[in-house]
């Protein structure tokens, strides 16, 4: 069916509504949807702390610096994982020194061999405890999705948005953006919460200082 044939009945339908009965487009701003979770302090460290609090509530885990991340990975007894190529220089040597096998490309016929995936976060949202993944900054969609553990590295230059509203106003032109608010979950079976359905069962956000 062509576009004009498809639009005809829609146009006919709305033409039945008299102008006097039409609802205007409401004007609203951040204040209108102010939540109690909205951080009041917008200093970067304060925003990170606010993010950590919210992320913890949705069962995400935060780490700061390498040692912290390494001990978390050790706790999970990982042996092999995927690291985004652009993070390779920063992360690969010391992860390998710790006895972990690192792949910087992902073979989708072998997705279960990667126990963790480390990719870059495009930013985070403090109000909701959300990690933002964008196509242009995530080296591999599957690398951030298929391993049991996903670590989103938040570089110094990536924004920490105070609110969902702020993040929505700065989506940019990326064809694919994911807001990840905690690990993958379901409550389909008798309402019982189970984490790690199709996506990561453990979702980590790791704040790191860039070395370059």
């Amino acid at each position, binding site marked *: 069916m062509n576009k004009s044939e498809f639009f005809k009945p*829609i146009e006919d339908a709305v033409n039945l509504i008299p102008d006097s009965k039409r609802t205007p487009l409401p004007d609203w701003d951040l204040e209108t949807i102010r939540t109690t979770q909205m951080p009041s302090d917008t200093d970067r460290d304060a925003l990170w702390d606010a993010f950590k609090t919210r992320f913890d509530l949705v069962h995400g885990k935060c780490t700061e610096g390498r040692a912290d991340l390494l001990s978390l990975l050790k706790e999970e007894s990982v042996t092999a994982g995927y690291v985004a190529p652009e993070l390779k220089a920063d992360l690969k040597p010391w992860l390998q020194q710790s006895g972990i096998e690192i792949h910087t490309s992902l073979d989708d016929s072998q997705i279960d061999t990667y126990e963790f995936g480390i990719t870059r976060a495009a930013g985070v949202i403090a109000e909701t405890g959300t990690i933002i993944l964008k196509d242009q900054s995530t080296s591999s969609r599957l690398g951030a999705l298929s391993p049991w553990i996903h670590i989103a590295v938040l570089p110094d230059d990536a924004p920490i948005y105070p609110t969902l509203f702020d993040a*929505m106003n700065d989506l940019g032109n990326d064809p694919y953006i994911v*807001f990840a608010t905690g690990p993958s979950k*379901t409550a389909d079976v*008798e309402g019982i919460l189970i984490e790690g359905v*199709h996506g990561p069962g453990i979702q980590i956000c790791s704040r790191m200082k860039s070395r370059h």
Partner: protein
Amino acid sequence: MKTKQPIDAFARDLPPEIRESVYVGSKAKYDKRLDSLTQSFAAPDDIRKLAGQIKQHTLENLPEYLGSAIEKLEGNGAKVHYAKTGDDANQIILDIMRSVNATKLIKSKSMVSEEIHLNKFLEKNGCESIESDLGEFIVQLDDDMPSHIVTPIVHKNRKQIANTFEKAGLGDYNDDPQTITRRARSFLRNKYIEAEVGLTGGNFVSAETGRIALVTNEGNARFCISANKTHIALIGIEKVVPRDKDLAVLLNLLARSATGQQLTVYTQFINGPKSEAQPDGPENMHVIFLDNERSNILGSEFKEILRCIRCGACLNVCPIYRQSSGHAYRAVYPGPVGAVLSPLLAGKRYPEYADLPKASSLCGACNEVCPVDIPLPELLLRHRNKAKREGIKKASAGTPSMAGWSVLCSTPAMWKTSLRAGKAMDYISLNLIPVPAVQAWAKERSLPPFRGGKFRKWFKDRQKNK
């Protein structure tokens, strides 16, 4: 108990364990919704009303906003298709699959795909179509129907699911929810990789950027557009909103209303095929906009129902839904929203579903919880009126005639006599009245002592003493 209304009969015959699952599940979601909204917002009602206005405004100017969304999507490299009916949409999907030599499709949860019976159509045409949402996957294995918009298997317990998995060859009987989930995870990841085409719905489409917002908790919709080269988004025309910023209002309400979460775990925004440097994901993106009676609804006295964002809150709160379960509504959309929408989506088969709007006590709770403030009780009444005007028998099945009442009320002498006679009701058992509705009512309740006529006496005495 005899009853002439199909939904009553269904509720009467519902196994107690299903009623219990539905009741407990609905109540839990209702409580979480309330907590999450009141903990977050000073005036949640104002935000519901705002969301309702945004959606209503968009609907009233749909050609403009839909046109803008299409232009943006095409500008970003997506191919847009137009489906007048469900059959058209099915055929478009099959044609797309054939054009890329695909026989395997994996899909995330989409109510619209349920509405057009996509899985059955593709299977008939030699294609595999696999549901990847855990609940929908179980529904598909059982050849069942979802009974709730958000939690499709709220009518099943773990034992039934364990039996289903065993029969489907997904391991020995095990009814531990975690084991069930892990088995589905392991089975479905191979399906994601094997499938050539991923199909998703779309919760919202921004007219400003063409951005499709898609929410899931499980991550299945992410997989559906990461592991294959063709993505099809099947979307009803009513999903458009004017601006990206409006998504902030609707996303804030959707998850809270549906499951009590502040935000759904994964909110995806897709506005075209993958970027060049990205190794994973679709090189081809197709967006199918579906009408399927929606333009007729838009031109009718029921247009407000098109605001619906499919959160399921009206189901969870509805006393009729809680007692009867989703399957009682005999259609894809159950509960109050289904009672309004299903007869309309049925088109010429409207009379088949004309009894559904009777399945409401008109208590108004559905309107109070609706994140887009749809006047559901009002719409149910408009349906009843329409069915009455059109003389649709199914709509008045089991309804006692009001003719006698009408004569009684408009004849003062008869009214006075019957008030005097009313005293006799204290001594007559209601069970003797041969009307099934009265008998059903009297089974659980009794009438208070008759006190009629006292006002008249008081009024007369007052006049006398003046």
